[in-house]
């Protein structure tokens, strides 16, 4: 018997995303997700949210910013050496 309601399910969604969950609870949660479209949407979109922020193609380092960084570091290194 599945004892999880939507409120319980939402509380556990973060632990589920982290894969930190007791097997029994995980089974109940997955059962609930398979039956409850709202909770499934919340889980899927939360997972997608994390994926989007981790997309390495976004927020590239501009070349001129990189150049300024390396020049500043090189200057600091040379000051220390002299």
């Amino acid at each position, binding site marked *: 018997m599945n004892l999880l309601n939507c409120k319980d399910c939402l509380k556990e969604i973060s632990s589920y995303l982290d894969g930190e969950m007791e097997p029994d609870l995980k089974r109940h949660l997955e059962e609930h997700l398979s039956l409850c479209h709202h909770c499934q949407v919340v889980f*899927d979109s939360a997972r997608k949210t994390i994926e*989007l*922020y981790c997309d390495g193609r976004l927020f590239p380092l501009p070349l001129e910013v990189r150049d300024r*960084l390396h020049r500043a570091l090189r200057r*600091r290194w040379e000051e220390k050496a002299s």
Partner: protein
Amino acid sequence: MTESSPVGPRKDDSVLVTEAKAGNYAAFEELVSRYEKKIYRLGLNLTGNPEDAEDVLQEAFLKAFAHLPEFREDARFYTWLVRIAINEGLMKLRKRRSDKSVPIEDAVGEEGEIIPREFTDWKPNPEQLYAQGEMETILQNAAQGLSPGFRAVFLLRDVEGLSTEETAQLLNLTEGAVKARLFRARLQLREGLSKVFKRG
């Protein structure tokens, strides 16, 4: 452990740190090249502003350089660098006279519960529907809707891949507080992005 690359075996960070401490600038520069993109992105997502992100990037590496002799080689170089960068970023936010971020408590009920309001499926592959700059703006706007403390937890745990324990130590929080903030940050961001990415 080393990985091979077209220019030879990739050295461990710890080896590069030892060489940099011994005065090898190329070794230090290699460490910078390895992590500059990630530190810039962290600064950008934390401050929401390219100028501040550049300051965070420069200050983080200049401080790492200045304090390299004190760095304990049994620690992870990247975690140490992230610690410096996140502190720089948070300091910058504290200095801002008017922080326009909306506190996350806005989405939290009286009992401290998160109440999701958006239950519509997202369009598939939203990353393919928007130009890169547009997507960056959408993500930044959503992130700036979090209070800085919650934003920092989300970025450290979910984007930088630090453990709950490392994040707790770095931000002077309990592990329970990190988990609670992460939970709320994830759902709050999801809520904000759902308004943009939902079908229909």
